[in-house]
């Protein structure tokens, strides 16, 4: 699985403080710790409190790429913030994210092409969050068709079915799992699939258990990538074990250690 570390986010107090005091060592430590724990890429988000994301985003990116060449997932709902980040990125990039709305795709897809970036597309539109699997699939199909019509390689597209907290939308979670599988059937080569795992457990108890249980289930449905906390050891153990059970890695008694030596 392509693991995107979620911890460089201004939503967290330490990163928010680092941004406002311009202390890049804290950001860099956070980046390296996530990589050491198995992150294949790093999400970068200035957070809701950032007063000047057009300056904060490039600063964060420059700080991170001083210490790692892992791909960076530029996380903002504002296209101009993403553009400011892309301008300074030397590492590979993933734009996070567009919605299914054409006016968003019209801006972000050309940016992705221009900067040779991959693109996360969430299956929501200005009509709101889809309420069932069929609505998710319809939005996903629109996004895929838009990419095909505009010459963007579908294998560089990550479709996000938008995870909702389990206490808010319990009846939707099974449909979300099924969407992950069905997104892959939309075309060949198929788009990649991604979830922002922590959304599932916002504001509820036993977060780590709920996250890792969903992650193992979604792996069985063919999930390619997740934005998650790689420093959650039990989550990573569950991920490695799920991949083992799905025959992605060869068993040995020390398979957890073997995976981490990769």
């Amino acid at each position, binding site marked *: 699985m392509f693991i995107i570390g979620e911890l460089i986010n201004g939503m967290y107090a330490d990163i928010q403080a680092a941004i406002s005091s311009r202390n890049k060592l804290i950001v860099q430590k956070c980046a390296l710790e996530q990589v050491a724990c198995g992150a294949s890429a790093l999400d970068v988000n200035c957070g809701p409190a950032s007063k000047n994301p057009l300056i904060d985003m490039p600063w964060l990116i420059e700080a991170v790429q001083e210490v790692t060449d892992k791909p960076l997932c530029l996380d903002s709902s504002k296209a101009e913030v993403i553009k400011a980040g892309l301008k300074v990125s030397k590492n590979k990039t993933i734009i996070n994210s567009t919605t299914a709305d054409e006016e968003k795709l019209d801006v972000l897809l050309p940016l992705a092409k221009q900067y040779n970036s991959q693109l996360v597309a969430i299956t929501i539109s200005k009509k709101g969050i889809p309420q069932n699997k069929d609505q998710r699939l319809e939005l996903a199909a629109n996004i895929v068709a838009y990419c095909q019509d505009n010459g963007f390689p579908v294998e560089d597209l990550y479709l996000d079915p938008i995870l909702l907290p389990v206490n808010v939308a319990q009846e939707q979670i099974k449909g979300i799992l099924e969407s992950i599988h069905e997104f892959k059937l939309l075309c060949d080569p198929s788009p990649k699939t991604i979830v922002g795992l922590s959304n599932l457990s916002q504001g509820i108890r036993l977060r780590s258990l709920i996250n890792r249980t969903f992650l193992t289930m979604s792996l069985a449905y063919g999930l390619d990538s997740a934005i998650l906390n790689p420093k959650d050891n039990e989550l990573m153990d569950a991920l490695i074990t799920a991949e083992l059970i799905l025959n992605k*890695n*060869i*068993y*040995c*008694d*020390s398979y957890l*250690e*073997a995976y981490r*030596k*990769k």
Partner: protein
Amino acid sequence: METQLALEKWPHEISTVIIGAKNEHGGSRSHSIEIGGQKSLPLLFKEGVIPNKPKIAFEVWDIAPVDWDSELVSAYGKSIKDPFAWVDKCVNDFKAELLCLKMQGAHPDSGDKGAEESAKFVSELLSRTGVPLIIIGCENDVKDNLIMPLISEAAKKERCLIGCAVQDNYKTLAASALADGHTIIAQSPIDINIAKQLNILISDIGLAFERIVMDPTIGSLGYGLEYAYSIMERARLAALSGDKSLASPFICFVGQEAWKAKEAKASANQGIIWEVITASSLIQSGADLLVMRHPKAIEKVNNFIEMLYKG
């Protein structure tokens, strides 16, 4: 319309292992042998670089072999009775570039030679020949744990490939290899899970994956060749996909297995054929290093390798 080949692109590669240290690397070998390093499945030259051909080591013992077939014995003539003359014959007459020395004489049933005597033998052999060495014990764990540390020390800095470490007995050998600058053979009983586990255990001691060569344990033609073949294939697929703990080159003890077969002993030529077929099949499943016995079989397999790699 021209047929398009469906080419696979692999993100990772097999480790490169070097056997034998020349002067500039602190040893006294006349040359060194490089194996592994490929970025594709065996012989699929269009999919990725395959920098090294499979190599063949002549199997020699520290004593005159007691149970070798008469055809094998006659191929080496009188020299086989004296290990040093046997080595000379391999190097001078048959142009061996790599030797696999088995310390059979230390086995309690084959002379029970002590550690000092065995180490002295290795020292003398190293001073007589510049060919890189693979050195394996007598396949008695207790005895090997006594002789191999001294043998390893006697060959310090020569970058020999020493073996065989197994899951229940790897620490002594791995520590010696680490201390004396050798590489190690990790042997698993036709079991990919144990092969992977053993590589992890050895790397935990401090020997990098790049200093491990895997012996998957093979069977000869008619005696389980296909089991080894499929395990090697599976390990290779995992390794090329990114599993470093299986990305070691393979060593296959072809000679000892082929000449066990009753068919090999049935007639002079058939033994050679048995050894050739076993070796050439294993090359196609990814063998990097073949330990063989009959000079004629070695010649034929070397010719086969040249033909395969002509492109």
